[in-house]
């Protein structure tokens, strides 16, 4: 089983609506990241939230973290067609180790936003 996994395989919304992607994880973390991957491209980081934070925002994006339930969410408001992509959560232990970067990715949630 994966150490990090998104709770939905696929979501579909209409442009302008809000959507939330959820993630659960099974390991002790120091941070959790959200990445977006558009078709034919490599993943790109959207937002990072540290274990001592409850929420982090970046424009239309809002990430939350609940370490007691080992879960995170990524919300996108006022969605656009270009938000169509696969969204991954990734657990980050590097702050704990202090030496090495190793992210563990979930399987991803496919989000479709188009009329």
């Amino acid at each position, binding site marked *: 089983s*994966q150490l990090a996994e998104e709770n939905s395989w696929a979501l579909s919304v209409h442009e302008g609506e809000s959507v939330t992607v959820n993630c659960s994880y099974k390991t002790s973390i120091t*941070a959790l*990241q959200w990445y977006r991957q558009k078709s*034919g*491209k*490599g*993943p*790109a*980081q959207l937002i*990072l939230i*540290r274990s001592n934070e409850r929420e982090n925002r970046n424009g239309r994006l809002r990430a939350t973290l609940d370490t007691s339930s080992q879960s995170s969410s990524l919300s996108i408001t006022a969605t656009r067609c270009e938000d169509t992509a696969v969204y*991954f959560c990734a657990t*980050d232990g*590097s*702050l704990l180790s202090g*030496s*090495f*970067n*190793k*992210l*563990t*990715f*979930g*399987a*991803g949630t496919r989000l479709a936003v188009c009329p």
Partner: protein
Amino acid sequence: EAAVTQSPRNKVAVTGGKVTLSCNQTNNHNNMYWYRQDTGHGLRLIHYSYGAGSTEKGDIPDGYKASRPSQENFSLILELATPSQTSVYFCASGDYRASPNSGNTLYFGEGSRLIVV
């Protein structure tokens, strides 16, 4: 300008043949990674490196070797390719120590699609 460049972008190989996937980064990051991406599995770590001359096994290293001859270059080698290694491979670079407040941000290439027949 792309900071992580992979080659080839597409490759068809025969079973039992040798395949080398190359990655070059201009981010001056110490750490580099090779992941593979398959439907239903997300991104799985094959090998990684935290500097020239070093390679480490990731979560699924069997059937793969890696080489890091310089800060900029990191190769993934399939000595005897098998159909189960058909996948999309992503290279990434990152360096927590370069920017601790940014956490462990990885910068990915655009992927190499490998088909083994």
